[in-house]
């Protein structure tokens, strides 16, 4: 499976999407940011089905930034289905959400999330967090081979 260098952002709030894009821009992260708006679309994109049927499923994203509260299929369910499928079993998933409920954190890690980041309200802090994420997952982190 090839690394596309893409980042998959699963986020339903358009303003959060816009802010995330801007934070990437400010942090000079040039990787393509693929945005999907709900859990179903995220799964369609990952498994090249539905609206994304034409996509080459081998072209996997580098990292998935996953919100938990999503329309149709929620983030934890997306995570569960990703981990149950051989194609996305080892794909790095960063849960990026507003909540810091202990329950959400525990469930995310139980289902195989690689990281859990709470989106700060303060935009400066948000930009900083995205920068750290990009640096870690796109530069420092070594992905498992053969996925």
């Amino acid at each position, binding site marked *: 499976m090839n690394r596309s260098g893409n980042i998959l952002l699963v986020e339903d*709030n358009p*303003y*959060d999407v*816009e*802010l995330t894009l*801007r934070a990437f821009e400010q942090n000079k992260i040039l990787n393509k940011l693929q945005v999907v708006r709900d859990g179903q679309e995220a799964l369609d994109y990952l498994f090249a089905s539905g609206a994304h049927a034409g996509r080459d499923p081998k072209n996997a994203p580098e990292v998935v930034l996953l919100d*938990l*509260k999503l329309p149709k299929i929620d983030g934890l369910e997306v995570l569960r289905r990703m981990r149950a499928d051989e194609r996305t079993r080892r794909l790095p998933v960063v849960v990026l*959400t*507003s*909540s*810091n*409920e202990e329950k959400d954190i525990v469930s995310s890690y139980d289902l195989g999330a690689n990281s859990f980041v709470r*989106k*700060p*309200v*303060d*935009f*400066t802090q*948000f930009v900083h967090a995205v920068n750290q994420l990009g640096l870690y997952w796109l530069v420092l982190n070594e992905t498992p081979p053969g996925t």
Partner: protein
Amino acid sequence: MAMTKAARVAGASRSGSLQRRLTVAFAGALAVVIALALAVFHTAERALDSSRHVAQAHEVLQVMVGVEGALLMAQSAVRGFVITGDAIYLRDRDNAVSSLESRVQRLRDLTADSESQQRRWRMLRDRLDGRMELLDRLVLIRQTKGADAAREFLRSVYPPRPPATTGRIHALTGDMVEEEERRLAQRTQEEERASALAVAAGLVLAVLFVLLFSLGYLAIRRQIAEAVRLNVILARRTEEVEAANRELEGFSYSVSHDLRAPLRAIDGFARILVEDYGGRLDDEGKRRLGVIHENTRRMGQLIDDLLDFSRLGKRPLACSAVDMTALAGDVYRELRVAHPEGEAVFDLAPLPQGWGDPAMLRQVLANLLSNALKYVPQGGTPRIEVSGRPNGAENVYCVKDNGVGFDMAYYDKLFGVFQRLHSEKEFPGTGVGLAIVQRVVTRHGGRVWAESKPDEGSSFYFSLPNAASGSFAAAPAATGGLK
């Protein structure tokens, strides 16, 4: 949701008086049953006694007949000897006499309970003795002087008319028989009465027993039905409370997630405005965007504090022994690392060991110590003293500062959520710190209080029950949540 305290107390006393009444009723019933059982036993005893008397009377009659028979036999044996001189008749006489004697003795025993019968018995015995003596003399005359002399003696003692002594003996035995028959009749009547009484008492006892048994059964069945009914209500209430808790959880989840997203957008876009259009804004325009930023930050902090406070009530306590001295030192060092600016004096005395949830007690100390560091007059040096002492079943801890203090007139607001005694401008904060302190200490079964004067510093106290005191009673987790 839950029953009010008053209703619970009323319910408890109602069930208490019901139990008391039930106990009294059963004790009374038991006493009646025991009394009746004793009465039945007594009457049955009497009936048995009467029937023993009846049997005795029958025996008296029988023995009486035997006495007369033995007397006749003795007399006829002696008559035979007088006529024939054959010694065989003397043996018959001896048998008859001994049989007579044993019967007379038996008669005395049987009539021992009646004075009049005893008197008659003594007369009977005397007459019989007289008769025996006469017979002995007759035998002696026949042996020594021959048959004619004996006949002569007999004729002199017994004139041709019926012998008076025999008649008298007969009359006596007749009297005794008559008396005994009268007593027999009386005893038979008594026996019947006693038996009837025993049967009646037994019947009453049986009826009463059945009645009590039925009543007890009904009472128990009613109690069980009541218990089942209460259980159903309890289950329903529990379900309602659980549903309410789930709702509250969903609510705080929404607060945490949904309230923060718009805030992030407000802050983010205000910032973008400054970054992209800053050149076209004058200073007042930039200041106003700064106000937006400051207030979103503050709202974010409020939301986080509110959630922290609400979670405090929900999380179960994980208690263990806590080295309070080490904990206070730790917390202070962390606070100084986060806010190293300026000088500060920290005086930590050895504290009694605490018993509680270490993470929560850390929050208590963190809030008290950070307040002590925060509320210092402009340019002043904070001086903090931490001390503690055992006090009966609890340990009391004190955090004393030399800060701005507060007016005791506003004391009742001190530990309220989002209550502040100072302006945000003077000392920033959301007013949740002392509310957290109070909630944590209360959940540990302790108390919180404070003493202060404006500009003269404050002393904050909290107590924790000893592990050994046994009065450690944490409030149930579900009572937490928002005020």
